[in-house]
């Protein structure tokens, strides 16, 4: 969570805290107990929105049956998991699925031979999966090349911090230190692997990968159902490639809809939308 997120959360938490601090204004009976329940519920919802907004907000719109028109001719149903368009007397639905190949390269501490094998087999696996899908699908990567020197400096800073943590863990005699040392060493190895790759001339990139699938139906519900079953087929098909696939809902769906017609134009704007995948 970034600084802005912390400020938003702290200020929102102030309201429930004010109520708790002045609980005497509600007497000592059942009224104050009900107030406490509502306050705790609000705190729970605020925390849930902070970390799981893509589940909580669509849940609210689904309960209240609220749908949206993001642009003329388009509709986002209450579940906020697909976009619907009516054209030529038919209903078209499209949904987005994250397809994060990122884990292949950067998240895992993988030996180089294994990476090479994965890189080598990826195009063939890819073709096999795509040819097996009998519906329209689009795989997209939004990427931006980063300044290699800046990324390297940042990584070296992170490595130094982890090395400092390591020296502290080595000095402590607690029972958990063996586990901690192992974990820190793993982090150092990952950072070192990234530094080595940059040193070998590879240019660092920030990327966002996702799959869009399109379905058509004689009604909006028919199109929605078809697109949902296609999403499941995609998730099953790509599981063999060890891809992180999850269906996008809520604001991410809306952002990707906007990206169809205009990409973010700077790296900063790009990362502000999707902190997790960059």
């Amino acid at each position, binding site marked *: 969570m970034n600084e*802005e*997120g912390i400020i*938003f959360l702290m*200020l*929102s938490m102030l*309201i429930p805290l004010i*109520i708790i601090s002045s609980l005497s*204004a*509600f*007497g000592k009976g059942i*009224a104050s107990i009900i107030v406490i329940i*509502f*306050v705790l*519920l*609000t705190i729970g919802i605020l925390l849930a*929105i*902070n970390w799981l*907004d893509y589940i909580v*907000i669509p849940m609210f719109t689904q309960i*209240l*049956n609220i749908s949206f*028109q*993001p*642009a003329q001719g*388009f509709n986002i149903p209450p579940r906020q998991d697909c976009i619907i368009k009516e054209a030529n*007397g*038919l209903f*078209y639905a*499209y949904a987005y699925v994250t397809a994060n190949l990122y884990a292949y390269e950067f998240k895992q501490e993988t030996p180089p031979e294994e990476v*090479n094998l994965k*890189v*080598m087999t990826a*195009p*063939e696996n890819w*073709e096999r999966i*795509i040819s097996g899908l009998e519906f*329209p*699908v*689009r*795989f*997209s*990567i*939004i*990427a931006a*090349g980063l300044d290699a020197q800046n990324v390297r400096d940042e990584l070296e800073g992170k490595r130094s911090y982890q090395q400092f943590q390591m020296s502290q863990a080595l000095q402590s005699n607690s029972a958990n230190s063996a586990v901690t040392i192992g974990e820190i060493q793993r982090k150092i190895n990952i950072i070192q692997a990234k530094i080595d790759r940059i040193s070998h001339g590879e*240019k660092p*990139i920030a990327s966002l990968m996702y799959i869009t699938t*399109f379905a*058509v139906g*004689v009604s909006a519900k028919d199109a929605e159902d078809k697109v949902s079953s296609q999403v499941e087929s995609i998730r099953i098909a790509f599981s063999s490639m060890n891809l992180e696939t999850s269906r996008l809902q809520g*604001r991410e769906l809306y952002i990707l809809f*906007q*990206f169809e*017609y*205009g*990409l*973010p*134009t700077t*790296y900063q704007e*790009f990362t502000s939308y999707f902190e997790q995948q960059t």
Partner: protein
Amino acid sequence: MDQRYVIFFGIIAISAVFIVIAEVLPIFLWPLKLLFIVIGLAFDILAFSSRFYLYLVSPLISQRKRFIVLSQENPYTLSESSDVVVTKRGENFIATIFIEVPLYVSATEMQDEAKFNFAMQVGKLMSISPYPIKFSNQTSILNKDEYIQSLHHLLSMAQNDELKISENKDLSPSDINRIKGKVSMWQNILDNVSNVQSFDQTIFAEVSAEAPKDYEAITLAQQRAREVMSGINSILGVMPVVATGADILKFLEPEYIIPSVEVKEKLARVLSDM
């Protein structure tokens, strides 16, 4: 001040007002106090939601309906040169260019080394631009309407010839067989083509530029597109082309990805089989 902060602080202030009212009300009005507390807390949740969902919160408050209109405008317009898609974001214009990459290689036909090199080339492609660029590989349903029409035309010509067999006494048995064979051939081709859905695969790149004026954004996007095209050319050794006019629509509109003619044809077949 950023609109997000204005709305956030505005809703928080409304929430605080309800809470204060609830607190100053006398204790014997506790049901009313509770109601104000609940409203105040609901506004607090709404304020926090505006961090991510400003595009929903603000119209939700102003429209108070179950169908919220976020925009009544078309999502994009095409430039006069019909090669740039222009959209508005806030006060600025975003111009986007679609570049088709004519890459017709298959990994199944490659040796291990070639596969590895190809994967590396794709990796390099990702870093050709310091600003965000989108690469897509799209599988869409092929619009065979024109082809099917031409098959219908050829079939009816062959059927006409077949009808004229009885009028023409000079035809030899081999000529008659040839004419009848032609009819069944076109009929078989037509049945096969219209019964199977064919897919089309396209690789394309997308670049955008933002500026306060639309023509500035267009010029900037065209400049970026040229840079990206030369990058693609040097890495993959293919000549990318800028998509224009109707070609752009197959990247934007779902009805061009799944042509309605194909769907209606399929529906008609299902109905006739019933």
